């Protein structure tokens, strides 16, 4: 089926408004055709991936050349995913001059399109919260899930190029999670295990995603879900199972209005299932050389909690402790004494990047402890890297001393 386009959209597609807009429209329309979309719909905002030079490589510059032929700008507020380095402290991260030069060029190009260089996977933590029912084109998989699940906004799991195309045109194709009927759950999960910390939420998400790839879950018997817990669950579901939307009984905005009639299966998540995930990511035989926290990016509360858990303890010799966050959150913790407090104990806080998209982590460390299953999943893909998954208070006990 070929979708209906307005006269204005036809003109954009035909090249009358320039090659960059035509290419962007072609991308959105063809993807829409494949998924049987009947029309294009306007989006409220966009979140664009494809920033770290580690992942996009040289190819991105050729695409930028094509886009710069017309002086094209984004049509809606647009935020940028993390880069491959802290834009200020990259030398301290042992990033090469060559990598840094290319990374700076990439971010500068996106800025030239009118994109806000937030360089975070969690724009919702720094004030960019989506509205209920709003149509979006977001691409970072954990943020996609938070927008859909926690805020009740509507976005498919966009690719790096399609989110950029939507930002440029202000449009996306109406299919998938933009349509109400496609947002109903398929699997009912009775959460019998206790969720006592962020890692437990992360373990639940990872376990479910591995078992039911792509199916929307409806979780029952979860007692609380703040944004920091929600993002751990979201990131894990997306990393292991490409899940872009979840519901939690009484706690997520669509949990009362959705239709649970088409549920195909009901299962339990037990203490044993939870333990399986911790055992799966228990790979370090020697001592750890890095603790990496902030996947997704740490919020102000996350960092406060780390500081509180540490109390007066100091880092043990030979172990680094890195926290990843957005530059905006870093500015906030700099303003109160939180940053100084952490740095005085040897803990480093890096902005704009993370353990997954920066070459600095994989190249310099082999035995990494984290509290996030998503981080553990991607870091352990490198054959030389071993990871341990632990809750934050256990991590602090293991790597610090009085």
């Amino acid at each position, binding site marked *: 089926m070929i979708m209906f386009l307005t006269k204005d959209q036809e003109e954009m597609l035909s090249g009358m408004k320039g090659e960059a807009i035509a290419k962007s429209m072609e991308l959105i329309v063809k993807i829409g055709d494949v998924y049987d979309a009947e029309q294009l719909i306007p989006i409220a905002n966009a979140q664009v991936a494809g920033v770290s030079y580690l992942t996009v*490589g040289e190819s991105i510059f050729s695409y930028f050349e094509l886009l710069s032929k017309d002086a094209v700008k984004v049509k809606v507020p647009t935020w940028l995913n993390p880069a491959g380095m802290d834009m200020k402290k990259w030398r301290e991260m042992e990033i090469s001059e060559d990598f840094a030069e290319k990374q700076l060029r990439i971010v500068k190009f996106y800025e030239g399109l009118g994109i806000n260089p937030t360089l975070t996977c969690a724009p919702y933590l720094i004030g960019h919260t989506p509205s209920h029912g709003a149509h979006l084109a977001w691409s970072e998989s954990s943020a996609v899930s938070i927008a859909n699940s926690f805020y009740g906004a509507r976005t498919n799991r966009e690719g790096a190029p399609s989110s950029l195309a939507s930002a440029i045109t202000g449009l996306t194709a109406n299919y998938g999670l933009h349509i109400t009927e496609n947002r109903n759950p398929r699997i009912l999960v009775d959460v019998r295990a206790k969720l006592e910390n962020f890692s437990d939420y992360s373990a639940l998400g990872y376990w479910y995603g591995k078992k039911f790839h792509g199916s929307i879950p409806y979780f029952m018997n979860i007692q609380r879900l703040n944004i920091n817990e929600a993002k751990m669950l979201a990131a894990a579901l997306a990393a292991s199972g490409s899940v872009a939307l979840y519901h939690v009984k009484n706690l997520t905005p669509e949990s009362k209005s959705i239709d649970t009639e088409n549920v195909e299966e009901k299962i339990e998540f037990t203490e044993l299932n939870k333990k399986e995930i911790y055992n799966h990511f228990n790979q370090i035989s020697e001592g750890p050389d890095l603790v990496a926290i902030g996947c997704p990016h740490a919020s102000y509360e996350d960092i406060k909690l780390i500081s509180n858990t540490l109390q007066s303890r100091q880092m043990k010799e030979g172990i680094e402790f890195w926290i990843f966050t957005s530059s905006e959150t870093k500015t906030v913790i700099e303003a109160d004494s939180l940053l100084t407090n952490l740095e005085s104990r040897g803990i480093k806080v890096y902005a704009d990047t993370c353990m997954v998209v920066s070459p600095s982590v994989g190249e310099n460390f082999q035995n990494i402890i984290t509290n996030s299953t998503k981080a553990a999943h991607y870091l352990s893909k490198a054959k030389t890297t071993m990871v341990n998954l632990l809750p934050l208070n256990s991590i602090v006990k293991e790597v610090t001393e009085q």
Partner: protein
Amino acid sequence: MKIGIRPIVEGKVTGSVLLSPHPISFLGDVDSETGKIIDSESPIYGKSLKDTIFVFPRGQGSTVGSYIIFGLKVNNVSPLALVVGEAETIVIAGAILADIPLVDLPDKDLFNMVKTGDTVTIDTSEKTLKIQKREK
């Protein structure tokens, strides 16, 4: 032998098949500068995509993979066409950016009917894939 297909990016080309029985993550599995398969566990490890009809079940992995497909074109090592079991957004976006013909949903069991080295013609206006010559 004629097989029906769904055209996504148009074109008519004849070329030699390179078949991957496994899904492809362009980011990580393919080198955009040389066009070679760099996934050491792939049965076509080290083979180049350049000027082939690249047949694989589906794309997977990072969505940045679309830019890798575009990079193949820029570096003159791109395949003549992409034939997938079922297209998803990574491959669709990549093929559109690079302007490489893309078809999917073969109406017969293509993966057991062609092998690497066979000559095939894809014609999106006819919605067909024809097997011209079999590699001995």
